[in-house]
């Protein structure tokens, strides 16, 4: 998966909840913390990134909404042919 394209799709789903600035900052910060620095993103790296984002998001919007947001991210990426 292309890293930048994947990040852009994740940010697009997170934006209505976190706002544009935090959606970008949170996703990029977690990428850095997980050592996701190359141009490509593996399935394992994506799963780890989504777990990190979900753990933080749950504090703000609860587990139910977080579950739906993560599902939406996965569906968006799947439609784009990036990941299942």
């Amino acid at each position, binding site marked *: 998966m292309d890293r930048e394209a994947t990040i852009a799709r994740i940010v697009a789903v997170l934006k209505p909840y976190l706002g544009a600035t935090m959606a970008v900052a949170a996703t990029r910060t977690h990428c850095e913390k997980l050592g996701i620095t190359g141009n490509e993103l593996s399935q394992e790296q994506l799963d780890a990134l989504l777990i990190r984002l979900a753990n933080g998001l749950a*504090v703000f919007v609860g587990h139910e909404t977080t579950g739906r947001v993560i599902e939406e991210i996965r569906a968006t990426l799947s439609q784009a042919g990036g990941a299942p």
Partner: protein
Amino acid sequence: VSGRIRLGLVFLSLAAAALLAGQALWPEARLYWSPGVKAAVPGLATLTQLLLLAFGWVQASRCAQGLKPGNPARRAWWYFAFGLLGFFLGHLVQAGYQLILGTSPYPSVSDVPFLAGYPLLTLAAFGFVQAYRETGYPLGSTREHAAIGSGLTVACAVFGFLLLRPVLAQPGPLLERVLTAAYVTFDFVLLVPIAFLVRLTAPFHGGAVFRAWSLVLLGFVALAAGDILYAYFVIMGRDELEPLVDATYVIGYLSLVLGTYEQRVLLAA
């Protein structure tokens, strides 16, 4: 149903706040000539505050229930809900005084739940700060937070001291002066985590989290402003401006309740 109740509360609160502000700023206006209107305005204010706080208690409890037991924000939401309940009980006792005696004595038994509400709201605010810092989201470094905390504590201590000294030096019963000083002190303590939360939630601008929190934080600031205004009017001997304090409380409660409602909707989105 909650949406319709919310809309009704917005209209009722704005009407009550406008009537209260008018009574304080233009007491000679034709509207206030009637003894019936004069008597009805405090009653309307109390009823509005009770309805707002009851709705706020329900929404805040649902926010707490909507988070899993391990969620670090859950406990903070419970503190917040019980803080609102304390304020509700305070206003309920005051309403009883108004109905039986026709006036609200100060100090009175109503100050007990009011004063119990402040530490709960302060614990809630600190709890939210702690929970949001633990999310791993980029919300500022520990050093930055320490600097903000130190600066705020010093600023609140200085302003608090400047305001409290003349309040305590006023003539009048000691208990009354101590209570007024206690409310202002609680407000300044509460303002420290509130300012922190402003910093923490500002980067969420444009999102649903920010919409909910900006309303909650605005509500806290309005409540503190109400208490500080009250203390200021006591110092200046301007008792006739007290309805302005109640108008500030109504707007503060409304803002807190709307923010809590937004948060509850967000949890169930």
